[in-house]
């Protein structure tokens, strides 16, 4: 079996006395797009935030491309890496947020350029080219100079995707990136993600869009109460949904909302 790009073993995380992740094991191969579904509060966001080290975790290991990311290896004690040491590691793990989180004082172009110049050390001129390329790719070549407040939600989210992808991350994490959007804007964002998947971008996608999960993801993970309950090829998981009570009732609730 080829080594997986993302390898999670026995990941545990609590907020106070609330155990949010209860022993997660997950492997994602290079070029694979995995969709994570599950009821509200099941720990999906927390899982992604742990992978990008925005949340510390209590136990277990997360490796990206073979390196343990959040904690110093070796020795018997577990020591979290310093924020400074985490920065270059995070740069290789892209994240797109539910609420976009664009830098409000920077234009679309500058939002994408910031990481390229400051983190990747690319010259201004080249960063501009690259940022322009990605904004063009997400269909925003006419909005380069717009501030986030001048953009629609769908446009903001596409800037968010461009900002993450332009960094050339090894893996891209997407957390319900369409759930804050008006229904008519969801399509434009999902089609961008579909394009990335086709190009072989490794992705972990938390989503409530079941059609999207089926079409984009090669694989579906169903989480409940901090555990991976089901992990399998998309079509199989959805076809056999009736055999699992929890998945069945989750899907029924999703249906009702749409």
């Amino acid at each position, binding site marked *: 079996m080829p080594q997986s790009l993302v390898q999670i073993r026995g990941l545990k995380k609590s907020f106070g006395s609330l155990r949010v992740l209860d022993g997660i094991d997950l492997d994602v191969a290079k070029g694979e797009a995995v969709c994570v579904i599950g009821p509200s509060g099941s720990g999906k966001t927390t899982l992604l935030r742990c992978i990008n080290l925005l949340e510390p975790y209590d136990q277990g290991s997360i490796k990206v491309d073979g390196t343990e990311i959040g904690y110093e290896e070796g020795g018997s004690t577990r020591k979290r890496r310093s924020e400074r040491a985490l*920065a270059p590691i*995070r740069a290789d*793990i892209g994240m797109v947020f539910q609420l976009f989180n664009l*830098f409000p004082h920077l234009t679309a172009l500058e939002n994408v350029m*910031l990481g390229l110049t*400051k983190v990747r050390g690319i010259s201004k001129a080249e960063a501009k080219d690259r940022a322009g390329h990605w904004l063009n790719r997400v269909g925003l070549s006419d909005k380069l100079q717009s*501030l986030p407040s001048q953009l629609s939600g769908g446009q903001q989210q596409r800037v968010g995707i461009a900002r993450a992808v332009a960094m050339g991350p090894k893996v891209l994490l997407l957390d319900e990136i369409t759930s804050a959007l008006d229904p008519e804007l969801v399509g434009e964002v999902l089609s961008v993600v579909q394009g990335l998947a086709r190009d072989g971008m490794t992705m972990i996608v938390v989503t409530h869009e079941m059609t999207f999960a089926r079409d984009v993801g090669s694989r579906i993970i169903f989480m409940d109460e901090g555990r991976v309950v089901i992990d399998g090829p998309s079509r199989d998981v959805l076809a056999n949904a009736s055999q699992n009570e929890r998945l069945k009732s989750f899907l029924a609730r999703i249906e009702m909302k749409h």
Partner: protein
Amino acid sequence: MTYHFNFNFVWRYADKLYWGLVLSLEIALISILIGMVIGLSLALAYTGGNRWIRSAIAAYVEFIRNVPLLLLVYLVFYGIPSAGGFAYDALTSFIATLALYSGAYLVEVFRAGLDAIPKGLIDAGKAVGLTPWQRFIHVRMPTMFRIVLPSLSNVYVSLFKDTSLAYVIAVPELTYGANWIKTNTFRVIEVWIVVWPMYLATCYALIYALRLLERRFSLVRR
């Protein structure tokens, strides 16, 4: 008997008013710059500090805010040198006073601003791979300043007006100049008829300039 207006004396000493106004503006500018350094440093120390640091900063803010500015002017000019056994000139003392005074107000302004930075922006900065220092320079500071700009404007304008208190320790700013002319010519009404619009016009010019700045740096472009 009617009062006969005579502005001649005022015009004769107009340079006292002109240079007084210039000095008032200089005092305001230097004090606010020092005050901003104090305010921002303490706001950051407060946000990242332990209980002791927080209490010390809170005590400073409370002390300054609950003492009338006039008393503070006397305290710094007369009190501190006599207790410490040294002396400084009135201007230095007054600038120090205003800097400490505005600093205390600005701690609160900046602290509120730092708290108001959306958490998601910090996360986004982390996710892109910015180091803590880069996040400070490129994310936290620009966002915070834009959030606090309207409150900053208020502090600036009231600080300019507060420079008039310097006349009690004989700093030759605008109010001092006005008083000088008044005591030397007894033309009380004429002096204030000239000086009052000078304060008013300067305040309006300040407010206007600050509004332009606010609009330029607004996060919402219209």
